């Protein structure tokens, strides 16, 4: 619409009374089809099935996912607005949390919350005259494998992230080595691992080695979901990752700001993802400081 000149300023908005208003429960009921007769209902069941398939096909499991849950929680502990801001998570906490649907424990699941978020997009030219430091969209790519999980052949990857990522990197003219931080759609920990694997940050089954040792945490070499993400900040679909990427590149993130404050690289380029259904769609956005 912007390219065609039909619009000058486009707002992308999300709002949901998901917790107090019971909205998320309605959504999860809608996801429930005939497969409920076999014990599969809601969203956790679908992703648990995919995660189990991942464990079967390549080396993954809670030993990998704990690093994602705990790493993101450390970021949330630096973000006063995050729902889990005051709650630390130890490895013991991670393993002792109840299983929701095997193999996904409670802290492998994202949060359910009330709230909203919005972003405004315009041309780079108009952006230069506005109030905030502009954050440019350097690359984007989308891919929609679309099949419901029952018919999906991509539960252990490659998901839509493969082609979406390739398209975004191609547009931006960069590779994974140029990315300073990632904001990845994290409905579940496994989604983060699979998305990063399909984007090419590590080889198939190498996630445990890649995530261990604080890679994604404050002080780590690839900070990821620095607001706490949907696992530990709040859930706004793709706007949780995208809004955080923008604020980090603007340098307005307070105690969690990437750079000297968190002993990380000052970011020029941040990669974001969104994902829909049960791994049925993927969008990859690469933002850079304007």
């Amino acid at each position, binding site marked *: 619409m912007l390219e065609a000149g039909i619009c000058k300023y486009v707002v992308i908005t999300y709002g949901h009374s998901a917790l107090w208003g019971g909205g998320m429960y*309605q959504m999860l009921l809608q996801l429930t089809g005939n497969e409920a007769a076999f014990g599969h209902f809601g969203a956790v069941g679908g992703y648990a099935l995919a995660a189990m398939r991942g464990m079967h096909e390549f080396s993954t499991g809670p030993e990998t996912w704990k690093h994602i849950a705990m790493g993101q929680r450390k970021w949330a502990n630096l973000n006063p607005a995050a729902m889990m801001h005051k709650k630390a998570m130890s490895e013991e906490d991670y393993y002792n949390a109840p299983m929701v649907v095997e193999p996904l424990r409670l802290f492998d699941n994202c949060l359910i919350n009330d709230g*909203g978020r919005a972003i405004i997009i315009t041309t780079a030219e108009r952006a230069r005259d506005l109030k905030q430091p502009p954050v*440019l969209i350097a690359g984007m790519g989308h891919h929609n494998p679309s099949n419901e999980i029952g018919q999906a052949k991509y539960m252990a990857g490659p998901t839509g992230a493969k082609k979406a990522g390739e398209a975004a990197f191609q547009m931006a003219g960069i590779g994974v080595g140029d990315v300073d931080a990632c904001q990845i759609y994290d409905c579940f920990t496994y989604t983060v691992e699979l998305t990063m694997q399909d984007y090419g940050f590590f080889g198939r089954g190498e996630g445990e080695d890649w995530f261990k040792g604080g890679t994604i945490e404050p002080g780590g070499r690839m900070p990821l979901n620095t607001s706490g993400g949907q696992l530990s900040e709040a859930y706004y679909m793709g706007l949780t990752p995208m809004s955080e990427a923008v604020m980090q590149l603007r340098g307005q993130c307070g105690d969690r700001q990437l750079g000297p404050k968190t002993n990380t690289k000052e970011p020029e380029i941040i990669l974001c993802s969104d994902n829909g259904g049960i791994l049925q769609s993927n*969008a990859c956005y690469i933002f850079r400081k304007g």
Partner: protein
Amino acid sequence: MDLKDKYAVVGVGYTPQGKVPERTSVSFHQEAVANAIQDAGLKKEDIDGLISYRHFPPCPGEPNLTPQTISQYLGLTPSYASQDAN
């Protein structure tokens, strides 16, 4: 069509989050969009496109939140309105 670096994010809008009682879904759209407009230093009248995030069934007792309904509650008359965004 090379879109590289042609477009920019210029505003971000937040709202209270967590368990926030006595609030409708559309009220969160209103607050988030108003805050994003303010953050960008724009006026409401500047917004001529609206994309609402992918569709959820309405919360009990709430209207179905189509892009048109959201625009109406926001007092916007966009040239383009859709439900998209992955």
